[in-house]
């Protein structure tokens, strides 16, 4: 009897919990947005190729522009339609009258130094939120929960990318 009861209890809990797990958004990490086996991109390090020009302030400008390395970075199609949860920094695009950011880009890092190219298109999520979030501090990361949409436009004009309609936005606290 002593052994049966905890087991029964455990199985009941699991039965109840599983549907909850199914509804629970999947916590994503940024590397998961890059498909496995994507072509390895040669990392562009310092824009200065000639160290003798280190002191030359214009050297950075004469170096090739650090444009987006991979204009159409590959995306993980499997994430389309999934309920996910992703932490990141908010870069506001549209701000409502009340001061709430209703459309923004979510990025894995913010205010990065100029020596590194900006995040590739598969490390940026374009998010809209009807309710919006009041962004007081650009350096505050947030958790965003919602259904991920993966768009892969065939036309060469647009970059493919991740989009989401945010259902929940809350601050990311360091535990």
């Amino acid at each position, binding site marked *: 009897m002593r052994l049966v009861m905890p087991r029964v209890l455990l199985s009941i809990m699991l039965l109840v919990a599983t549907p909850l797990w199914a509804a629970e958004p999947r916590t994503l990490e940024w590397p998961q947005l890059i498909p496995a086996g994507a072509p390895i991109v040669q990392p562009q390090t310092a824009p200065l190729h000639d160290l003798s020009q280190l002191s030359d302030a214009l050297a950075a400008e004469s170096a090739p522009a650090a444009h987006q390395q991979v204009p159409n970075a590959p995306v993980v199609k499997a994430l389309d339609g999934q309920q996910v949860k992703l932490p990141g920094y908010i870069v506001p695009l*549209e701000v409502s*009258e009340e001061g709430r950011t209703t459309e*923004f*880009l979510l990025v894995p890092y913010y205010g990065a130094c100029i020596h590194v190219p900006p995040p590739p298109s598969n490390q940026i999520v374009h998010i809209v939120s009807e309710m919006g979030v009041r962004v007081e501090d*650009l350096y505050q990361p947030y958790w965003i929960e919602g259904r991920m949409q993966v768009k892969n436009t065939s036309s060469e004009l647009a970059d493919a990318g991740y989009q989401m309609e945010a259902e929940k936005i809350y601050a990311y606290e360091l535990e």
Partner: protein
Amino acid sequence: MYLLRLALASLANRRFTAFLTAFAIALSVCLLLAVERVRTEARASFASTISGTDLIVGARSGSVNLLLYSVFRIGNATNNIRWESYEHYARDKRVKWAIPISLGDSHRGYRVMGTNSSYFEHYQYGRKQNLQLAEGRAFASDPFEVVLGAEVAQALHYKLGDKLVLAHGVAAISLVKHDDKPFTVVGVLQRTGTPVDRTLHISLGGMEAIHIDWHNGVPARGAGRISAEQARNLDLTPKAITAVLLGLNNKISTFSLQREINEYRNEPLLAILPGVALQELWSLMGTAEQALFVVSLFVVLTGLIGMLTAILTSLNERRREMAILRSVGARPWHIAGLLVLEALALAVVGIAAGLGLLYLGIAIAQGYVQANYGLFLPLAWPSAHEWSLLAIILGAALLMGSVPAWRAYRQSLADGLSIHL
């Protein structure tokens, strides 16, 4: 509640002091709410000025500076950018639309902006609202046509067909005018509640035409002068403009394009995300706003302390009053309650009067503030935030009132029924 009736009757007996106290509270509440309202409205007004623009490109200065002069017409550009740079990016596959703008002239204090038809097509404000014409049309092929913002037309009483002369520079009183090339009003925009209302819009060709015979910053004289008629026949493609507003096909390409523009080798350019620059602007203003808020809170506190002082000093004269009340059956807590009610009554009247003063002030100053600062202060009911501020003030008054209430409680216990002081 009979106690309330007694409290009010007692206050009415000391109505001059009561009035002064309530008035002090009213003034401080009005100040606090006014500060809050201006702050909120300024933010809202800034936030609603631009919408749907992904990047703003200008000469390399500072991001807040670029935002301020290109969108809010505050401040000036340090440099212009070359026409070729504009064309390069306007043709870029990632760019959906590009609006070139050119600043630097004015008309009776209102700024003049040179642009092309894509401005009327693509510029948005508020919640993705496009510009609408209230009357007339946008400028067309003739370079000397101007479209007025709503505020300009209203304040200067212009209508379609009127002719006006632009001045060089942005001061309200201009000493150097382009009077050989007058402009005709062909359109007036609907009110937007943004700096667009206070702008005169001309074509880039028009902007080029009025400066075409200027050399080294000085208008030409004599033979060097080119008349308006002559100018019409010249090639009026500008060589330089002040800034470009970009709308992209896919917002995800924002960062990469921004980085590319910032590192453009042909010219030192700066590309900003308006949302980010706005946030930076707000964080700059934030400290000042907070300081102002704290100061006005202190003013309210001063008003409440004034009330506390007034009630405390009246306590002594009213010992008789309290002894009489005790003799007719008032318990000590009745006496304390009486004083708390008094404080509350004063606070409520003060707050109500403060609100009244605020609305009166807004009603009077609304037009002036809008015309001179572009800030629209609405005559709206207090927001949830404002209500909570008022509730806190009421709570503070209650707290203040409990001080004389406690004193009176102890006094009435000690004095008992004796009115022989």
